[in-house]
């Protein structure tokens, strides 16, 4: 009840731009649905190339999220809790990929991990490992672009969390690692989950760094966004179908995870 009354009280100067904002964000998605050749949908979906690209997208985005969790949660802890100097510089550096055009990220990855790159040439000489044009390169490109989303979310959750629980755990004799594992992590779990979802969604949509650094090969490096981009050059209807599939997968995942994991943040 009280909520409806609040809604009615939205000032017009806020209501009009807000409504325009909604239209701006939702209309392109509606346009996609209106133009979808539904009769061709089944045929397009049966194409093995579509399944291949979708599977690769889901697998690589999930691996990129796992890698981001392993590296990003500790990094967020360092940013939120450590008192080391230069922390703000560190934070700025870590968030650069957020504002960097992903293509630039792809070029940078090439210069470091490519066959002629600083680290890549050593990997090639010492172990015979080359990264570009492999699924590993897709995961690396996606992690580079998506991990900052996770770090920022988890750092925010850590800052908002009540540190008195950690202090109490310490006075009860828990070491810092035990405190992190048993107290801090459960406390910020919703923040970690939200960050992981953001990270996964960003990784799923990654295009620029992937096509630049990982290349484009069906089954190995051609993820859904790349398939959409190239399909648009020859067969726009196929591109629309692929886009709708990607849209459905993203929406389904976000809704599913929101109910299961993020419900608590909504209620808080």
């Amino acid at each position, binding site marked *: 009840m009280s909520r409806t009354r609040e809604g009615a009280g939205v000032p017009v100067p806020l209501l009009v731009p807000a409504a325009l904002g909604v239209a701006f964000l939702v209309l392109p998605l509606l346009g996609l649905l209106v133009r979808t050749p539904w009769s061709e949908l089944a045929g397009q979906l049966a194409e093995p190339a579509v399944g291949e690209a979708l599977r690769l997208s889901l697998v690589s985005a999930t691996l990129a999220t796992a890698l981001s969790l392993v590296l990003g949660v500790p990094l967020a802890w360092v940013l939120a809790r450590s008192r080391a100097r230069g922390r703000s510089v560190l934070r700025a550096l870590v968030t650069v990929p957020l504002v960097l055009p992903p293509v630039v990220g792809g070029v940078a990855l090439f210069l470091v991990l490519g066959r002629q790159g600083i680290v890549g040439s050593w990997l090639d000489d010492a172990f015979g490992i080359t990264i570009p*044009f492999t699924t590993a390169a897709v995961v690396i490109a996606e992690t580079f672009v998506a991990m900052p989303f996770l770090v920022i979310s988890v750092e925010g959750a850590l800052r908002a969390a009540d540190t008195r629980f950690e202090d109490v755990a310490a006075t009860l004799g828990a070491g810092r690692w035990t405190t992190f594992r048993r107290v801090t992590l459960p406390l910020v779990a919703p923040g970690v989950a939200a960050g992981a979802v953001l990270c996964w969604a960003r990784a799923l949509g990654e295009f620029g760094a992937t096509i630049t650094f990982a*290349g484009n090969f069906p089954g190995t490096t051609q993820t859904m966004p790349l398939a959409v981009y190239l399909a648009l*050059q020859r067969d726009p209807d196929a591109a629309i179908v692929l886009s709708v599939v990607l849209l459905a997968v993203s929406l389904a995942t976000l809704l599913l995870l929101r109910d299961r994991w993020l419900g608590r943040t909504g209620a808080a």
Partner: protein
Amino acid sequence: MRTRALLVAALLALAGCTDPAQDGGGPAADGGATGTLTVFAAASLIDVFTELGARMEEEHPELDVRISYSGSSALATQLVQGAPADVFASADETQMARLEDAGLVTRAELFAANRLMLAVPADGSAGVTAPDGAGIPSLRDLVTGDPTMAVCAPEVPCGEAAAQVLRAAGLADVPDTYAEDVRSVLSLVELGEVDAGLVYVSDVHAAGDAVLAYAFSESARAVNRYPIAVPSGAPNAEAARAFVDLVLSDAGQAALADAGFQRP
């Protein structure tokens, strides 16, 4: 922090929202072309058309020439979707036919031809054997191992040609990545990230010393012919016609020949 990132993202998005053809031209007092001339050209034309565009601006001081280079099929899709271009120069006839089917082009003229070469990094390449000098080798003679190879995606003209020659040579499963246009293939070879790439003769001319290139016999099966046309509804049709005439003129043909293109 996040708000600031979003703000930056929004500003970046807004900065990209400029209309490439806001002002069409009209006849100037002296009969020269004026306004903005928007040219959509295949990626392989980047060096020649940049030069011809500059020449055009010299001859018509009140004209501003803007050229968008990309894979021909990406450009054709943009045109079919209503992008306002005055001239479209495609790397094959298939993409021009898409515009003809859409009723956007009635008369296209051929102005150049191009064929593929095998490009390798100048400082060595695994899996590729240099020709012995006796006649033109086949692709099979050159690709002796399993090189990391980049070719164009089958969606773009150079990729269609690449698929044809690879099939003819029985090497269809050699490529490791399908780039979105021919200049991306060339970049990968120049960077040394691949051992070999299939690019046009004209790209090899542009690459200089970083790249070695070998001609091969199968390339004769897939010669791309380049058509050029003024789409209907071109905002600056007069300047467009002048540009097409320049490309077809002796001077334009000489510039194309210098860049490694053949006559159609």
